[in-house]
């Protein structure tokens, strides 16, 4: 197991998140996809910390912890927005949210 295999796994996870965010029509999938991408990024942080030269300083771990905290906040606000948008448009299909169309 080398760093590159881990990176390949996290890149795959990232692209699966991107897939969920880009191709699904339900608004919640965008959030799920973003959370997956963030998780992939967290794996990278931890991996680079673990494989890097300074394992004594838990910098990567700290960044991951902050990322988790911020992702939780993002999920809370995002889901609240989904509910608010649903109340307004009576749908969660993101194709129909095109009020900003130019």
């Amino acid at each position: 197991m080398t760093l590159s295999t881990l990176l390949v796994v996290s890149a795959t996870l990232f692209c699966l998140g991107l897939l969920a965010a880009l191709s699904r029509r339900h608004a919640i999938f965008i959030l799920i996809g973003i959370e997956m991408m963030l998780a992939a990024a967290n794996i990278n942080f931890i991996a680079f910390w673990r494989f890097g030269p300074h394992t004594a300083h838990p910098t990567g771990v700290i960044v991951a912890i902050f990322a988790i905290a911020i992702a939780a906040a993002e999920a809370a606000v995002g889901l609240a927005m989904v509910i608010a948008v649903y109340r307004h448009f009576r749908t969660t299909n993101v194709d129909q949210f095109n009020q900003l169309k130019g």
Partner: protein
Amino acid sequence: MNIFVFGIIASFTLIVALAAATLPKLMHAALSFAVMFLGISAFFFLLGAEFVGLVQVFVYIGAVAVLIVFTILLTPHDVGNVRGFGWSGVVVAIAVFGGLIWAIVKTKSVAIAPSVAKALTVKQIGEALMISYVWPLLCVGVLLTAALIGALILVMEDKRS
């Protein structure tokens, strides 16, 4: 650490992640999403960051996944309307995937084995958080409070209507 355990965890995580991204039923996808974090936290355990793994499980399975299923319950929808699948997104995702893999393979400096390191204790993380990163920690606290209040205000029923 050996390649066997790693392979099991990686395939488990990626299969569940694929399920989360593609399962037609929203609830199944959300539950797979929750299970995926078990795999990710296993990665963290494998990499010696037990604390982050536990926090990941705690936050995502305990809180975010519950939030998501609640949101799904609160937004009943006509299933046919949301069933669609955008193939352009698949193309973009595959293109990005190709680009990333190409970049990783091309970069020689990442093909390294892990160094032998002492296990990271919770105390070390706590000291780092409370000494070196105390301001970011406070900022995150403020951010979480703001997010809490903001989320509440967003979903609050409008009294007038």
